[in-house]
């Protein structure tokens, strides 16, 4: 009968649906498409590194370490990144000395001391908004405050405020919100029971923070700080605003004197060399990029290793 063949056919179809291949073509294709976006991102990264390396190799082979030791020059065969590296190292000192303690202090206040008052909510919202302010706006801030307003303090004669001190303070202020936010996250990850145990034996709040909270949050704080440093290393726009020059630096030597003198940084030099039309300068720029990216990767790698080494799950 027709009815029974229909039943058999239906039974067969149900059997096939239950026992057959579980994968459907639509999902597989969709998944492949999504994966492709990630592969594309990886490919772009590889092409970028490949391009930079290919452009940098000839000049590195030809001149080797000389790139590192020579300063800015309008002759490509003499151009190097020496003062850029020195300048960037100086800027890192500002980040470590100013942004780290201020940022960690602010985060400790927000997470450990602040109650949920209106005032504290304003500070909190303010910090989050500061993190979204474009770098170039920090550059304008640095220009208005450190270069124009405080120019006489931040720089020596003939520098007009466009000194290493102005640049360093600007960069430190720029990364401050990042340090605060990552530190606050690390502090929040420390379980409350640890603090309560400290209070239970009569410790004051600061004693609890110093002996329990900070040591346990240290890996997270360190990771965040290191990442902020990597960010500061590559930042260019604010430095251009506060007047980072490209070269011909007349440094009087010493460690403190350069603070009030004109300065440059590695990314600023890369910018200057990239803008030059001659292909020889592109090679010098590529060599500078290789040094900059290598340093940033190392710094990031340190942060990731620190995180993996000390990360604790509560």
């Amino acid at each position, binding site marked *: 009968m027709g009815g029974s063949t229909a039943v058999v056919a239906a039974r067969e179809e149900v059997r096939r649906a239950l026992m057959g291949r579980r994968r459907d073509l639509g999902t597989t294709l969709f998944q492949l498409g999504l994966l492709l976006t990630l592969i594309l991102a990886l490919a*772009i990264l590889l092409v970028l590194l490949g391009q930079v390396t290919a452009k940098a190799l000839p000049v590195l082979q030809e001149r080797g370490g000389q790139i590192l030791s020579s300063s800015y020059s309008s002759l490509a065969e003499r151009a190097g990144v020496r003062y850029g590296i020195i300048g960037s190292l100086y800027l890192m000192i500002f980040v470590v000395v100013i942004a780290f303690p201020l940022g960690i202090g602010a985060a400790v206040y927000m997470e450990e001391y602040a109650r949920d008052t209106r005032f504290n909510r304003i500070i909190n919202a303010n910090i989050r908004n500061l993190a979204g302010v*474009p770098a*170039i706006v920090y550059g304008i801030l640095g220009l208005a405050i450190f270069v124009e307003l405080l120019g006489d303090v931040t720089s020596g004669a003939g520098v007009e405020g466009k000194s290493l001190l102005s640049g360093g303070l600007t960069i430190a202020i720029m990364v401050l919100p990042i340090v605060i936010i990552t530190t606050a996250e690390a502090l929040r990850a420390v379980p409350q029971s640890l603090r309560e145990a400290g209070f239970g034996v009569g410790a004051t*709040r600061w004693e609890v923070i110093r002996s329990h909270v900070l040591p346990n949050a240290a890996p997270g704080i360190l990771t965040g700080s290191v990442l902020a440093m990597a960010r500061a290393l590559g930042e*260019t726009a604010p430095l251009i605003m506060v007047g980072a020059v490209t070269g011909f630096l007349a440094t009087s030597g010493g460690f403190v004197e350069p603070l009030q003198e004109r300065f440059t940084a590695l*990314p600023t030099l890369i910018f200057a060399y*990239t*803008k030059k039309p001659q292909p020889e300068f592109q090679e010098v720029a590529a060599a500078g990029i290789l040094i900059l990216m290598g340093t940033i990767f190392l710094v990031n790698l340190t942060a990731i290793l620190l995180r993996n080494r000390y990360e604790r799950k509560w």
Partner: protein
Amino acid sequence: MAEAASTSGAIRSRGDLRGDPRRQRRERIVRTTMLSAAVFSVLISLAIVFALTGGAVDFVRRLDDLGLLFSPQGWFPRSNAFDVRAIFVGSLIVSIIAMLVAAPLGLGAAMYLSEFAKPRARRFLKPILETLASVPSVVMGFFALRFISPEIVQSLFPQAEFFNALAAGIGVGLLVTPLVASVAEDAMHAVPNALREASFGLGARRRLTSTRVVFPAAVSGITAALILGISRAIGETMIVAIAAGGTSGTTIHLDPLVGTQTMTAAITALATGSDQVRGAGPAYYSFFFVGILLFLMTLSLNLISERFVRRIRRQY
């Protein structure tokens, strides 16, 4: 005697319960120090606002005629043409191109990581995005000018100029992609598993579940990711300063294949290089005006995006 009692920790009299005055004093000092560090961040915001408005007011006061702000010539500060609409349109073109790159790449990567990748694959794939995020913008600018422009843009569109908005926009998009991916992935990750299980229980496959259940459930977070991406793209400076051209200014135009100037690039061009015209006339101060517009635009985009993020938190 009281000192000895407090250091040994034993309570000898009722007075000791109030605690050691030195410990209390230290507590107050530490608290005040930490508070002032937090207050310092508010001072930074105030300084930004004052620096920007001060310069912007200076600029407007130096203008002979407010009509110069809508000068028909476009944005050419050196010849006293300050049509901010021209550089606004420039920023808009670059941001739109950037989002055309960052939205599909970022959301695709986010959906793969959140819905399809196994934990082991995740651990390998996520660092790719993090590494892409750590590429300095000056390096991406170099890449946009020396690779994307000649090898991609000019080979697809032979009439394109060497400095063009398309190459800069693609570069900005690549830099914004990791940010979009990370915020969107957080949003999709926050969708409760019960929703997915209910969908599977009704017989929906993975593709249907992720596009018809997870995506709509995470849509406010995804919107936040895209808005944040636009905000970052508008504020991006070095890539456009290097690759978009238009170093002296721009007219209002929508052609992505020729050079253009964005708001951020206009600021750097004014503060540095050949365009530096200190003192005389309003030109130098005009970048404060552009700066405050940029600040207000990114701030309002960030606030909107934050509101969307808060909406997911309330839902789940």
